[in-house]
């Protein structure tokens, strides 16, 4: 009796907690509502199955509890029931899988015309690179990294010289335009994660990964490192600000290109 009651309370309590919980994900700021929809659908399907199974268990525990004279029946198999349950489960699985694959397809397919930017991780800060006037990111190699060239761009590549470099400062993005972020690390594996954008991708040294999204809401958002990267991991945060087109242009004007910052360092050295 008590056990059955506890089981019912677990089932009802779980549903109530889901409906009344004060904890929910942060308001979305990108085009990935699909991800939220998919996880909601999964919650509903698995929640239904969970409640059904726990309530059925509670009923059995109450109805067939040991009483003097009760005899269990002999029922080792029921082919028909087992097949129907299998098919029902398969239908539920397809209902969760199909939308998931649909969303994943969008996740990996970058739309044409997405502007490319680069994000570089290192222990324990975020840096960014924008393609500059030619619209192309120049070559880079971690072997080029030095105090005056923190992201390791190729000094001889003309595509690289006009690239805009933002080291350990906030990144601005224009609202409503698809962005493809190329991800690169020069030391260990980091993880690019902005909860409001819903997307997440690791930065792996030795290779370039990517992720894309379209910001739909202006404001500052925090970048968190989502892959354990050493003792400073919890402090590895950055800031991305989504702007209206005009403010974005104004911010962009103020940024220095790779060639400019190289020149500046040289002048500073000469002055010394």
């Amino acid at each position, binding site marked *: 009796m008590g*056990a059955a009651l506890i*089981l019912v309370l*677990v089932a009802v309590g779980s549903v109530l907690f889901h409906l009344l919980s004060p904890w929910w994900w942060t308001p979305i700021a990108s085009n990935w509502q699909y991800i939220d929809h998919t996880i909601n659908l999964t919650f509903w399907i698995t929640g239904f*199955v*969970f409640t059904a*199974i*726990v309530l059925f*268990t509670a009923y*059995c525990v109450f109805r*067939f*509890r*040991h009483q003097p004279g*009760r*005899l*269990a*029946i*002999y*029922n*080792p*198999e*029921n082919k028909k029931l*087992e097949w129907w*349950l*299998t098919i029902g*489960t*398969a239908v539920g*699985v397809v209902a*969760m*899988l199909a939308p*998931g*694959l649909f969303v*994943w*397809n969008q*996740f*990996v397919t970058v739309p044409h015309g997405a502007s490319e930017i680069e994000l570089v991780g*290192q*222990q*324990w800060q975020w840096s960014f690179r924008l393609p500059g006037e030619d619209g192309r990111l120049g070559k880079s190699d*971690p*072997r080029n*990294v030095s105090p005056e060239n923190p992201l390791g761009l190729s000094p001889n590549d003309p595509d690289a010289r006009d690239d805009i470099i933002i080291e350990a400062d906030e990144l601005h993005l224009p609202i409503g335009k698809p962005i493809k972020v190329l*991800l690169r690390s*020069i*030391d*260990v*594996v980091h993880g690019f994660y902005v909860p409001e954008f819903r997307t*997440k*991708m*690791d930065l*792996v*040294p*030795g*290779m370039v*990964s990517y992720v894309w999204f379209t910001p739909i809401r202006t404001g500052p958002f925090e970048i968190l490192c989502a*892959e*354990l990267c*050493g*003792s*400073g*991991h919890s402090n590895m945060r950055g800031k991305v600000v989504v702007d209206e087109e005009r403010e974005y242009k104004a911010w962009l004007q103020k940024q220095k290109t790779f060639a400019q910052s190289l020149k500046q360092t040289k002048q500073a050295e000469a002055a010394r």
Partner: protein
Amino acid sequence: MVDTTIGAAGAVPPAEVKDVELYHPKSWVTKYVFSQDAKIIAIQYSITALSIGFVALVLSWLMRLQLAFPSAFSFIGPSEYLQFITMHGMIMVIYLLTALFLGGFGNYLIPLMVGARDMVFPYVNMLSYWVYLLAVLVLASSFFSPGGPTGAGWTLYPPQAILSGTPGQQGGIILMLSSLILFIIGFTMGGLNYVVTVLQARARGMTLMRLPLTVWGIFTATVIALLAFPALFVGAVMLLFDKILGTSFFMPTIVEMGQHLKYRGGSPLLFQHLFWFFGHPEVYIVALPAFGIVSDLISTHARKNIFGYRMMVWAIIAIGALSFVVWAHHMYVSGMNPYFGFFFATTTLIIAIPTAIKVYNWVLTLWRGDIHLTVPMLFALAFIVTFVNGG
């Protein structure tokens, strides 16, 4: 002994090999310390696993206390926290759960439940325990090594696992990897025993389709472990080489805090693939024995046969087979080719079907049974709720 035939003629086939005399210990030491008796080895395994598990338990208390009262527990800084979380995770998954379920329950229950007189290789079985104990001691010694135990996370992802930004990179990581290598060597000796005993040493008449589900769970988990642990083994050896000999298996060109390191051209993702090729089956290595035990508990305390025994066996086998093609669902956002995601999402959800079948059959076993709410039964029922919720 005279052979007796039960029921239909030929139900119990005649013995093909004569019974072998059991190993008889001659002294206290050979009986209780260097024992070749599976039951004693099981108890040794269980006590060792629970002891090191207690260390992990204390670590989890410390972590929660730090979260609850950060100022009172300020001696736990970021580095210590990472070390605690790493040791807690690794101990729980490998040194406690794997050892307790396979080394402890496996050794105790397999010979008794399949009607074997002992494990088929008692001496190797004994060695298995002692190598396991050595692995535990090497792991525990890392708490006392300079710099403390490794704080690389239980997944030990390179490059950070062996670089200076991670706590315990002097001695801790070397001891951790050595301990894992020892554990796998010890486990392989035990695992071969369990598999061969189940396949070769069953009592006459104990066909595979009559095995208790507990044995099916432990048996399948052992087969999975024997196939999955080698991936971790090579990963650990290669990472150890990267650390000690300066090879570049997992280490690309790296600039660490402004310093150019000598590594060139390795692949951090290769380690992640090796790790999860072991790491995902590991989930089932610790789950399947528990599934089996719960099946038998529910059946016993509901005074009914387990519902759909044959389906249960096939579900265990299906889960075991599928567990090898789902590993990269731990790596969707790891930077691997994202098109792999389609394959691994599909296989991952397919594995839900045999798992769901097992849950249905547990609760259907309760139907029209005679349910005795004993403590083991309450545990089994709570397991179903927890598993449906979390699994």
